[in-house]
């Protein structure tokens, strides 16, 4: 809780994140240091998988209950509601929408990521529980898609978040997204979906890439 070196300099912080004092209605003066009080300062750790049957069982369990964070980051999110509607009914495959990162294990990056959203996507990803997976929809996440020359959208997602599965299309249809979930399940069951550990191992590289683009980094290095 006391590793001050990770805290960015005060000047870059949003006003509400800076140290300040608050006087309550009853006259009590409270000192607030938002970064220390509200965020955990620990950096992520690599969690080695268990050995043998136990890990296999866990992976099976993980694969069959994919809880997706309901965050429509781009235009691909238009195809997510039909996925959870009666016609395609992803619930029966163990896929389910959750409203907050704390409850979810899968982050769907649905298409292009504007720089402003990238920041939120990174925070959402970091707030998710391990093990966590990332599905990338559409061309935009692979090599920029039709916004390859835009000044405000990233070109390749794998420089900022560890991606497990890419689904081609613009937009991928619900059927293709279901196929993507199947692929993710296979990947989890085979024990290859170690994105979170990869992220923790290469945190410096990821952070350098992220900070290159997010010019006003007004939050802790790692948002857990």
């Amino acid at each position, binding site marked *: 809780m006391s590793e001050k070196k990770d805290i960015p300099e005060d000047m870059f912080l949003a006003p*509400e994140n800076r140290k300040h004092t*608050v*006087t*309550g*209605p009853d006259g009590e003066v409270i000192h607030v240091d938002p970064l220390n009080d509200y965020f955990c300062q620990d950096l992520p750790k690599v969690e080695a998988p268990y050995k043998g049957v136990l890990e296999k069982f866990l992976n099976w369990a993980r694969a069959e209950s994919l809880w997706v*964070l*309901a*965050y*429509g*980051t*781009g*235009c691909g*999110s*238009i*195809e997510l*509601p*039909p996925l959870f*509607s*009666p*016609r395609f009914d992803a619930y029966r495959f163990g896929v389910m929408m959750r*409203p907050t*990162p704390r409850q979810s294990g899968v982050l769907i990056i649905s298409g*292009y990521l*504007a720089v*402003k*959203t990238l920041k*939120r996507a990174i925070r*959402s990803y970091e707030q998710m529980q391990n093990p966590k997976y990332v599905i990338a929809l559409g061309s935009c996440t692979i090599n920029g898609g*039709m*916004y390859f*020359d*835009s*000044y*405000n*959208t990233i070109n390749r997602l794998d420089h900022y978040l560890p991606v497990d599965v890419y689904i081609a299309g*613009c*937009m991928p*249809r619900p059927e293709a997204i279901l196929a993507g979930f199947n692929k993710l399940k296979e990947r989890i069951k085979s024990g290859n979906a170690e994105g979170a550990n990869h992220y923790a191992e290469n945190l410096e590289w990821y952070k350098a890439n992220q900070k290159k683009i997010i010019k006003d980094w007004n939050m802790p290095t790692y948002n857990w």
Partner: protein
Amino acid sequence: MSNTIFDWKKDRSMFPEPDKDGKPVVELDSQKYIKVWQGPNHPGVTGNMALELTISGDEVMEAKTHVGYLHRGFEKLFERRRYMQCFPTSIRMCVPEPDINEYNLSRGTELLSGIEVPEMAGWLRMIALEMARLQVLLRTVPGQGGTIGLGLPAQWGLYYRELILDRFEELTGGRIYHMYILPGGVRGLLPDGFKKRLEDNLVKIEAFMKEVDRVVYSNAVFKKRTKGIGVVPPEWIDQYGATGPVARAAGYKRDVRKDYPYLYYDRLDFDYNVEHESDVFARFHVRRKDVDTTIDLLRQIMAKMPEKGELRAETPNVLHWKIPRGETLVRCESSRGEYLFYMVADGSIYPRRINLRGPSYTHGVVLLEKLLVNANISDVSSIMVSLATCPPEIER
């Protein structure tokens, strides 16, 4: 107009306290207020945008819209794309209803270069535009119930929307991004048996709308939660440039299809759907009536359109389609209101400027910020959906 927010203000709002000049003061450190962010990752906001709400108790004191989460710089990208290349790019500017972008861009290009589209293509464009309107309304009309917890009809609506998407797939080759209307014409005739299948779908949708009436429209909870909420005073309509269902719900007869007839809408028989209460319920009601109008229009189009005809007018070679210097304004009626392109050509093969002004530009920023003041926090998403804000069209 008895039950408006202005009446509420007196008995509900203790805060913010006005200062000497009568301006409200919101001092966060006073501990009387909490700042709550609704969005960008929140099921209650439409799309990827954020509302910065300052609340006191369960009442919103101050609201600020934050957009830009979907900013892709389209208008910059158009500077690097030829006129024909702009067309696939442009449609991404409004994700739920892409066809209006295709239409506006195509029409603008045609106007600037003086091309007339064959009649058949015009009717096919109308089919695409009306189908697009229908599929959006099938999301937003039952979806309005979803904002206050009536999620079931919203789920049903998505299924009926799928039926229209199936027709789109058949007609245009795409589900969401149809890329059907292109400068010069359209990209395909109706497939065999298309009219019959569409008619079957329309019958199903009509039956479904009856169900929506029973489950949402005449639902006691829904009425209680939407009547008198989010009232837009009629004098705001012109002042803030509000259009579409928002203006019609306030008693204004505003519909681009009738006011500035484009394509062959002047040959069709339909009327303004007007309400007067100007609250969330009235806007819902206008949209509900729009569904019927759209279904009726689709039937009229199918009956009146020619059987055969040219797909596309003769245009210059699209690889170097040069357009002489000129400016134009193109508008069409989207499901949310007047959708407008301002296009400037400079005599090269690239457009100088294509500027989009969608209805959400005011609905989603100024109007929403105004309406949310003194609203109950549980009504925020209801008001937002009733304005049908679409962030990608604000930030482009």
